[in-house]
């Protein structure tokens, strides 16, 4: 997906004179052609995330459309107050594109992990949150929403699904229809979710936008009242959205996601997947428990 950001960013720089890209000393070599072709609208701004978000807000005040890009914990957690005050409260549009996701940088340790990003950003009223499952989906979602005048977070990951879907910003997609339960798979969690229930009589809903949350699609596709929520970040982050969407239907929820603990092992992201249960077999076990 990171390579896609470079391609999509270059294409949008060429198309839209208002677009400005700010890199937190990240992906700079990848954008080398953009630096040659658009020298006044792409900057390696440096390692100063708080001021970068404020500066991006100032650009937005002059009518420019900023894209800010760096690793997730620095973009979201270090700059949270800037995202809240300088974009959310000011009601300004901007794009915040992170890499690293929950533990793509598994071996670098917890300073570079960010399973809390989606839950944290959901606390900023008006903040839109996009979790694409593939590079092609990211390209499509970015083009749909980048200049909509609202702050939008794009959570890129090295974990990708095997197939891209014709995703629409703000809408969930019905991947499969069944009767016994509804699986909500967010972004890259779709791949193991599909592996888990290929032969089960369940509905699969695929969410690539989690804020705003598409309540209608869930309401229309959850007559069983049984929900398996598969999220690639902190587990249970969307629980309140689900409860609100299905209220007053009595529901049972099982969760798959990153546990609320520091993941102090190293190794590869796939090993973290196995540790937290983000695999087809582990999700299938959760599903069986839900269907008991």
């Amino acid at each position: 997906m990171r390579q896609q950001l470079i391609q999509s960013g270059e294409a949008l720089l060429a198309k839209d004179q208002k677009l400005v890209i700010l890199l937190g000393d990240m992906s700079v070599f990848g954008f080398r052609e953009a630096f040659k072709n658009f020298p006044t609208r792409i900057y390696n701004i440096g390692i100063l995330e708080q001021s970068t978000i404020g500066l991006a807000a100032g650009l937005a005040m002059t009518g420019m459309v900023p894209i800010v890009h760096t690793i997730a914990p620095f973009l979201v957690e270090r700059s949270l107050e800037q995202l809240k005050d300088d974009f959310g409260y000011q009601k300004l549009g901007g794009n915040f594109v992170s890499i690293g996701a929950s533990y793509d940088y598994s071996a670098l340790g917890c300073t570079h992990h960010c399973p809390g990003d989606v839950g944290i950003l959901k606390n900023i009223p008006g903040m839109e949150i996009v979790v694409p499952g593939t590079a092609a989906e990211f390209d499509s979602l970015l083009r749909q929403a980048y200049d909509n005048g609202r702050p939008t977070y794009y959570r890129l990951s090295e974990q990708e699904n095997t197939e891209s879907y014709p995703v629409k910003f703000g809408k969930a997609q019905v991947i499969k229809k069944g009767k016994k339960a509804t699986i909500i798979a967010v972004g890259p969690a779709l791949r193991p979710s599909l592996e888990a229930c290929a032969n089960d009589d369940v509905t699969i809903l695929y969410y690539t936008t989690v804020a705003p949350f598409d309540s209608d699609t869930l309401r229309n596709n959850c007559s069983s009242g049984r929900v398996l929520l598969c999220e690639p970040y902190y587990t249970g982050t969307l629980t309140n959205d689900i409860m609100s969407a299905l209220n007053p239907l009595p529901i049972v929820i099982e969760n798959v996601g990153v546990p609320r603990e520091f993941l102090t092992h190293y190794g590869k992201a796939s090993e973290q997947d196995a540790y937290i249960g983000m695999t087809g077999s582990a999700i299938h076990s959760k599903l069986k428990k839900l269907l008991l």
Partner: protein
Amino acid sequence: MPKILNKLKCSILQTSFKAGEGHIASAFSILDILWVLYDQILKIDPLKPRDEKRDRFFLSKGHASLGLYAVLAEKGFFDKEEFERFGTFDSILGGHPDRNKVPGVEASTGSLGHGFPMAVGTALGLKITGSQAKVFVLIGDGEANEGAVWESALLASHHNLTNLICIIDYNHSTDRALHIGDLAKKFEAFGWRTISIDGHNHKEILESLKLKLSEKPTAIIATTIKGYGSKMMENNPAWHRKAPTKNELEIILKELT
């Protein structure tokens, strides 16, 4: 001191008394600077406060909002009656300014260290689009404790934002916490042109603001007195955030008139 300043100070006191809210001492600290800016420097039409060609002013130390509101009301950005409703439930004027409510306010500030980066971004955006407009930002010396202030200082000089003028309200608020020292030398070290003035001397304020732009961003270190004009209030930390009692109001109004 021009008579208008005393008039504005009296209205700030009365408004704060009525609302039971307000950072009056900070407002008095910056009022001379704000008046000169809006009276003689800024190219802004109060009837078209979002005109693309306007100069921009960011009050980064948003808690001094009463000073800004008083000047904006005097200059016709909104009705003076609105100023008198400061701090009431459905007023457009709160303890910190809201750009989506108050005509003439460029940024919703309050948390320190936010207005300056936004001013830097605005200066960069105007430079990219070839605008001739200038960007003025006012920060406090206490605010200069924030790392984001120095991040922004670095960004502004690196990107040659010659259209940016930062005024530092050096009223020594920070001294009891963190001694910040020679702000002019610090800004110079960050690549800025600096000018040091008496922030209550209108001639010095005007001359510094009228200087031709240089090849660097400009920092104006304005030495000021917190609560300037009221002996009861001047440099008295008890007045950082405090509305006057009826008795205090009468005493200070007498001092001013």
